[in-house]
């Protein structure tokens, strides 16, 4: 069989595709969270960061297309493998019994699908601006933000003070002031964390790197990653709901003009 055939046509090949696309997606969600946590700093940070990403232009599109391809491959492999597995199982047992498969591992399909639904809403909300348009960064009353300080990445100034940028800071906070939206977000990242708990463990097995000598450590690392990931994600809508994070007031906007 040729190389493409072996990866796309065989059971293990598809598992390897799942694992590699999983690595890309994990890298993305972790990086994304780290970027988002800048919301707890001065609005310059998250707004400058967003402006910086937009300034990447074609590079941003390379990353976006790469991520979309990884997500599509991941979902494609999950679907094909699941359909084959249903067919292979044949009849169900009259007496259903699970010996040691974890809850997270048995919920992969559900957590995956709900995460997908969340992803669609999330993009519609914060990237495309087709839902909750009244708070969207480019159309809302607080749509503009003037940078007070330079935004630096690795020591280089990438966004200069005084630049007029989109107001991501207030879009996110106003978005999460809707309780239903914030709760849906919290539930979805919770399920994503559960997905990652099995996924992170699993990818080492699929790539042939796991064995009993260090699997206890891998499992602890996966658990730690998922708990930290969940708490990090919980912090943002949680702080908004608790009233700790507020959109910029007119006063801040005014000082921004000076």
């Amino acid at each position: 069989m040729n190389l493409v055939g072996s990866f796309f046509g065989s059971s293990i090949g598809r598992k390897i595709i799942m694992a590699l696309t999983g690595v890309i997606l994990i890298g993305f969600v972790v990086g994304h969270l780290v970027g988002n946590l800048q919301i707890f700093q001065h609005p310059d940070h998250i707004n400058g960061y967003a402006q910086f990403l937009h300034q990447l232009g074609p590079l941003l599109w390379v990353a976006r297309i790469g991520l979309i391809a990884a997500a599509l491959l991941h979902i494609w492999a999950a679907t094909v493998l699941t359909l084959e597995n249903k067919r292979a199982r044949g009849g169900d047992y009259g007496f259903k019994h699970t010996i040691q498969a974890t809850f997270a591992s048995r919920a992969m399909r559900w957590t995956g699908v709900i995460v997908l639904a969340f992803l669609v809403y999330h993009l519609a909300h914060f990237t495309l601006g087709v839902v909750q348009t009244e708070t969207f960064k480019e159309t809302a009353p607080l749509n503009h933000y003037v940078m007070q300080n330079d935004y630096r990445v690795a020591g280089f100034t990438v966004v200069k003070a005084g630049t007029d940028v989109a107001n991501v800071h207030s879009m996110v906070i106003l978005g999460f002031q809707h309780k239903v939206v914030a709760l849906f977000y919290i539930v979805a990242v919770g399920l994503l964390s559960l997905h990652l708990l099995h996924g992170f463990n699993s990818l080492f097995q699929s790539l042939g790197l796991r064995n009993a000598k260090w699997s206890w450590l891998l499992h602890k690392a996966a658990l730690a990653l998922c708990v930290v990931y969940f708490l990090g994600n919980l912090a943002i809508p949680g702080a908004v709901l608790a009233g700790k994070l507020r959109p910029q007031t007119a006063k801040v906007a005014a000082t921004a003009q000076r």
Partner: protein
Amino acid sequence: MTLRVWRQAGPKALGQFKDYAAKDLNSNMSFLEMLDVVNDELTLKGEVPIAFAHDCREGICGTCSLTINGKPHGPGKGIATCQTYMRSFHDGDIIVVEPFRAAAFPLIKDLVVDRTSFDKIMQAGGFITARAGSAPEANAAPVPKGVSDLAMDAAQCIGCGACVAACKNASAMLFVSAKVGHLGLLPQGQAERDRRVLAMVHTMDEEGFGNCTNQYECSAACPKTISHDFIARMNRDYLGATLRSAFQPEAASSDGGGA
């Protein structure tokens, strides 16, 4: 105690559970001996006895099967059905007995399934192509102790199919990985290592087994406690073999130089 047994006259027939009272049992009887007792009674009554597979009755042949209360080979760990004793159950229990279920193991009758698909996987690569003859000098091919022990762990697989029966996806990964790992660890298996893993996995897929979701029900059900570490090992072997075989140059005289 009550036995709730899957009865199905043939592959096409409709199957169903039937209850039988199992009487006059001794706690030191094996599960298969208990079935013998029940079958004797059925025969005396003129009913068709329950068909079940068995051979060695000492845990080495892999013929016995049965899913007992949802777990292949019954409640024990590292034990085949033939070595499961009635002392593992209590008076008055209802014991549900089903065949190993998997599309790749078509049912023949009652509790007997056809595991030919395993033979096909073995024929695809579960051997070394070596000249048969008298045994070679034992010290000619040194094998470190740790490696030979690991190979022996894998070699314990008796090909029973419990891993497939236990797997939510009816995947044969544990069985195939035991065979691939056993030969792949030993010097005699090296020459055909890549070809073997590619061919055995290919046949496994063709026979309609499912795909592993790393839930490890297989190793928990395995009567020989084969570790799912062998599955990781096979995944790695498969990845390497795929890449190597794609880039390996072919000899010009690939038809062997014959006329």
